[in-house]
């Protein structure tokens, strides 16, 4: 098992280099001049422009800029934001807990609802329940996130007034940021109502971010379960006198989880992409909103660094998924 984990971990290195190359290339393909953006409407002299270009290292050949960038990135230095002059890593780490909290709640919601829904649809295949689950999940999958978010805000926050419209915490409650995770911080603080406020702020954004993963997980679980339920070993379990519930939840689900776990890993990428839009809609102070703003400001180091850090998170989550694979599926664990 240890050698299996190590071999998987080694694969992270080429993936990481690939991501740096991609982010670097993508950002430099965006049209627009960062120095002109910095200068704003006042304009800037040609000499000052050249001076700033040199200062920021933007006058050097692309390959050299990339080499410098990669060298610094490996040392954990992703440069300073052109706009705020604070280190990109620092800005990212300040905002990341908010995104992580949102993503975690969203994927938890998607898994807790998606797997049972998929199992139920598979076991009751061909019934109204099955068709219902599939229609709802297809709708969820097809829904544009920003529109779905706005719709929910209008209905649940606006008309029904059940949840707050935006932000992470009621502005009347003030508390220290210890971990950056509101759910934990609000439990640590003595402020009354802080925890419930944190939860109420989380509900809608989590639902919105989790919608697409939920739909994908439900559909994947259903098709994997349908395949597994027809397997000989499921019949063997029934022939042993195992109860129908245990046949489905133990013998079948354990096997069906293998493709589902893959999908969950892949969905973390979708999740963070969804978080970018959702954070903007809900004024959620996370890395997604920060990235969108940085792109608007042509803040090259911030965008590059932000995407790189998000990609690193996705790579690490997928590493975790690979390891989970081995735990669930002994055939992978023992393959030499």
């Amino acid at each position, binding site marked *: 098992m240890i050698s299996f984990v190590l071999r998987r971990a080694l694969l992270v290195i080429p993936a990481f280099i690939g991501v740096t190359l991609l982010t670097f290339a993508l950002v430099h393909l965006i049209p627009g001049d960062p120095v002109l953006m910095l200068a704003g409407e006042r304009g800037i002299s040609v000499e000052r422009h050249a001076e700033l270009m040199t200062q920021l290292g933007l006058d050097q050949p692309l390959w050299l800029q990339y080499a410098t960038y990669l060298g610094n990135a490996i040392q954990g230095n992703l440069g300073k934001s052109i706009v705020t002059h604070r280190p990109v890593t620092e800005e990212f780490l300040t905002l990341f807990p908010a995104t992580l909290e949102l993503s975690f709640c969203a994927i938890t919601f998607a898994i807790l609802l998606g797997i049972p829904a998929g199992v139920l649809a598979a076991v009751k295949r061909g019934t109204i329940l099955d068709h219902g689950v599939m229609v709802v999940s297809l709708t969820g999958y097809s829904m544009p996130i920003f529109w779905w978010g706005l719709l929910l805000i209008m209905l649940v926050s606006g008309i029904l007034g059940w949840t707050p419209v935006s932000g992470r915490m009621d502005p009347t409650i003030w508390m220290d940021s210890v971990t950056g995770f509101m759910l934990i911080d609000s439990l640590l603080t003595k402020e009354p109502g802080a925890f419930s406020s944190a939860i109420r702020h989380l509900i809608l954004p989590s639902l919105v971010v989790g919608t697409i993963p939920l739909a994908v997980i439900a559909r994947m679980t259903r098709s994997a379960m349908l395949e597994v339920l027809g*397997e*000989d*070993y499921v*019949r*063997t*379990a*029934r*022939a*042993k*006198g*195992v*109860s*129908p519930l245990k046949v489905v939840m133990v*013998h079948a689900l*354990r*096997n069906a989880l293998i493709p589902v776990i893959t999908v969950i890993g892949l969905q973390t990428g979708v999740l963070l992409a969804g978080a970018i839009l959702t954070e903007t809609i809900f004024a959620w102070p996370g890395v997604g909103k920060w990235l969108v703003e940085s792109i608007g400001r042509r803040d090259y180091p911030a965008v590059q660094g932000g995407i790189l850090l998000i990609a690193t998170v996705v790579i690490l989550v997928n590493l975790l998924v690979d390891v989970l694979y081995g735990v*669930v*599926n*002994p*055939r992978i664990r*023992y393959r030499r």
Partner: protein
Amino acid sequence: MALLEIENLTVEFGGGSNPFRAVEEVSYTLEKGEVLGIVGESGSGKSVSSLAVMGLVSFPGKVTASRMAFDGVDLQTLSPRQRRKLTGSDVAMIFQEPMTSLNPCFTVGYQITEALKIHQGGTRAERKARAVDLLGQVGIPDPASRLGTFPHQLSGGMSQRVMIAMAIACDPRLLVADEPTTALDVTIQAQIMDLLLTLQRERGMAMLLITHDLAVVAEAAHRVVVMYAGQVVESGSVPAIFDHPRHPYTKALLAALPERAIGAERLNTIPGVVPGAHDRPKGCLLAPRCPHVQDRCRTERPPLEDGPDQSRVRCFYPLDPDGVPTA
């Protein structure tokens, strides 16, 4: 009283006015400690009928019978929970494909002790000791170290031994063996068959042996039921049926044995195929393939009629000992 009584067992697939009958009015009995062979071509309904006995036919299959009793208990009146108490303990089953019949995600030990846990309880250590004992009984070397292995680490023969260990875990009185050796190498086939017959004799367990291999039946079974297209066409004691088959289909099956074609240019075959869902004949189901077919056979279905010595045959003109149709 017979251990297993099956009367007019029918299994249908697909609803509506014209469902497909995979098994049609099958009747047989099985005494305690007896080995009953069920033979037939692929698609003759022998597997489906045994799954119906186990209660393993799942939706959309529909099982009906005028009587289906195990040790005098009517299986059709039992609740699903009561039925499950029988399956895996008193009635156990092994399957054709050992490699796919074990769950790839669980260890051999887990899969054997699971049956013990459901039906017999006991402590974890007791169950583990019993599992080691069972693996030893089915001839697996170094059984204690095998508990932690996963199915993909076992060969086909070893997997089938594990399946057998699982099946006999709760000392069943009836073992249903659905083509237990078909998927195995020829050398392993003999070993597994020997193992099954030894266990059967030692434990006095009744066995329903489903196979398309008449040689296996001749060696292992006391009585035999010949199935064709979902129906029983002939049943009786093994010596009687092998020496003097009364149904033309049984005779053709026996003639198709390679051993009976020694010296001949070609092996004997039965022309045509088993009728499918949409081309079932109106009369006798064998009529299109029968060498002795008469007009009556094409319009009327023959009933299963009792003969001497508990034998039964479904033919208007059963063959006499010389192989000539009687009037």
